[in-house]
């Protein structure tokens, strides 16, 4: 919706293709990444996407910054887990597995209504702090009330020992994945349509100018409250799906880290775009699971990426692409495409160098024997000698230097030259 930001109603690019491309991808990807690990990762992506979309109902659409959205995800997961266990205990009789996420959604809605009723009176910093406090309270409580939360170990369930509506065998990871895809699609459609309703419009209005919203008859608190409760519902849905894919839930799911990750992912993707949170959530899931087994430094990469986005590209990754696309469509790339590509290349070289530096540092400071041979980008180096450091720093400095001090002024000159030429 155009009211959402610069995303603009004018651009069809971001309007229709995601609804074709993303479901297609969701169907094709499991053919490519068909390992057990790959399918699990894809399932987690689907769940993270629902969770991030629900988060953006708050941050992007209503301007509410929450540090405790995992409360609804986690409580949804716990309640869904209890229902799954009841079904397990009843010998696989009762609620079909496909509908377990609905239980999560109902729980999310329930707690969203309760906690939302006093969280949303004010927006901004007060709201952020209340959600932070609530998140910490619920997380601590989850370790105290071990009957319900299963203590540190958490709770286990068995998705196979539950009936299926359609006779599907959920012993197969792939089948479970398709269940996630189906729910993700349903959730995405609903969240998308919600933005077009009077509530969705007024959520934007309240975000931009709560006072004006009052003077057209709307109570900002109620607008926020309904958005909050609905967002909590979708978060609970995501939690319910997690119970199905992982068959375990523990205190981490309501924890502050979970709340932090959804915030980071949503923002990195771009809060002004519907697909922003999807891109961000997918990226973060991949980074978290693949990078963390590959390098110790993944949290650092993650934090640096987030800070760079906040500082240099507040519209997120999708925003960067979209801005470039708009410029290109308006003919802004004419005569300077080469320079743009050059800047991109130089930037990538810089990032490459920076990654080398970070990896070297981790090896140097954190490994038992810093002088042990260390595989870096296909080379075997000794981190206690100067050469790899010099090369790495050199690449980083040259890359970023060329981008910022050569490419950027050149682009500016070329653009101003073109526009003057146009005027002449």
């Amino acid at each position: 919706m155009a009211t959402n930001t610069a995303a603009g109603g004018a651009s069809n690019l971001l309007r229709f293709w995601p609804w074709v491309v993303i479901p297609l991808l969701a169907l094709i990807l499991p053919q490519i990444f068909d390992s057990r690990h790959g399918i699990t990762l894809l399932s987690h992506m689907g769940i993270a996407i629902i969770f991030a979309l629900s988060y953006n109902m708050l941050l992007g659409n209503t301007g509410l910054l929450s540090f405790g959205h995992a409360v609804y995800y986690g409580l949804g997961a716990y309640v869904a887990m209890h229902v799954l266990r009841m079904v397990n205990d009843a010998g696989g009789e009762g609620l079909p597995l496909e509908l377990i996420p609905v239980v999560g959604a109902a729980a999310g809605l329930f707690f969203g209504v309760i906690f939302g009723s006093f969280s949303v009176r004010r927006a901004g910093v007060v709201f952020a702090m209340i959600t932070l406090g609530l998140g910490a309270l619920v997380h601590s409580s989850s370790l105290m009330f071990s009957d319900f939360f299963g203590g540190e170990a958490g709770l286990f369930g068995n998705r196979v020992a539950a009936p299926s509506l359609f006779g599907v065998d959920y012993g197969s990871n792939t089948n479970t994945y398709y269940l996630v895809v189906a729910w993700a699609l349903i959730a995405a459609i609903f969240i998308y349509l919600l933005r077009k309703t009077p509530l969705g419009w007024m959520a934007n209005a309240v975000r931009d100018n709560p006072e004006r919203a009052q003077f057209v008859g709307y109570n900002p608190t109620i607008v926020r409250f309904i958005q909050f409760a609905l967002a909590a519902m979708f978060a609970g849905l995501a939690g319910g799906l997690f119970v199905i894919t992982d068959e375990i839930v523990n205190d981490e799911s309501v924890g502050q880290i979970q709340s932090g990750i959804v915030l980071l992912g949503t923002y990195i993707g771009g809060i002004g775009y519907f697909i922003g949170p999807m891109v961000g959530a997918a990226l973060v899931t991949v980074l978290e699971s693949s990078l963390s087994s590959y390098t110790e430094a993944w949290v650092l990469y993650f934090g640096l990426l987030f800070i760079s986005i906040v500082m240099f590209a507040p519209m997120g990754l999708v925003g960067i692409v979209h801005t470039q696309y708009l410029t290109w469509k308006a003919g802004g790339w004419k005569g300077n495409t080469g320079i743009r590509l050059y800047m991109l290349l130089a930037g990538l070289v810089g990032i490459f160098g920076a990654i080398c530096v970070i990896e070297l540092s981790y090896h140097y400071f954190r490994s038992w024997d810093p002088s042990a041979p260390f595989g870096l980008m296909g080379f075997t180096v000794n981190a206690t000698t100067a050469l790899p450091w010099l090369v790495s720093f050199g690449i980083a400095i040259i890359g970023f230097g060329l981008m910022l001090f050569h490419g950027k002024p050149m682009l500016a000159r070329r653009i101003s030259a073109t526009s003057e030429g146009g005027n002449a």
Partner: protein
Amino acid sequence: MTKRNALELKAVKKNFGRAEIIRGVNLDVHEHERHVIIGPNGAGKSTLFNLISGRLKVSDGSIKLFDKNIHNMPAHKVNRMGLSRSFQVTNLFQNMTVMQNLRCSLLWSEGHKYAFWKSVMKQDRVTEHALALAEELNLSSQADTPASLLTYAEQRALEVGCTVASGAEVILLDEPTAGMSRTEANDAIQLIQRMTGKNTLVVVEHDLSVVFELADRISVLVYGEIIATGTPDEIRNNAAVQEAYLGTEVH
């Protein structure tokens, strides 16, 4: 002939901390009249509007809208009871287009409330109404322009449009022509007269030629008190007013 009062203010006071800004205002605004409030800068005119419209809480006194107490009601409730206002400093949804601003202003009065099961764009009555308003405001050609990209005069016009859109009985306009050129101000006044023909209108206005042309009655607010209320002729001939206000303005 006794007229019904649209607004009735009794001994309304407002202080910020120790500073008493509104010092016991009594004011009746008759139904369907055009009531202009004049007074020097800092007299408390905007503050008075903020009190009436629920943006600020009164410190003392009472405000009635069609015989119902509205003081200290939240702004959205006052709005729903039939009072709408514009601001001295333009206050629109800047990221939204002209049509989106107008649609937002219509949603509540068209009964859509907090609905989350229907699409705004499919509400034909809202669309028709908003298109008609855009036409009346001479903003049809800018219908899809974000409010932030309109000229100042256009923004002010849109603000009037959004204020009137909900069909509120009572309209408060705070300096609708401030900062405009002569011709722009004339256009704005004509627009206001056209669009608020059936309403009760309370306007804060500085330009005295406009005031005397527009007003059925005038109230003069000086230093938080209303020192006179009357027809334009009465006000013109009122000694206290001449001394306190007009005299200083003439030269």
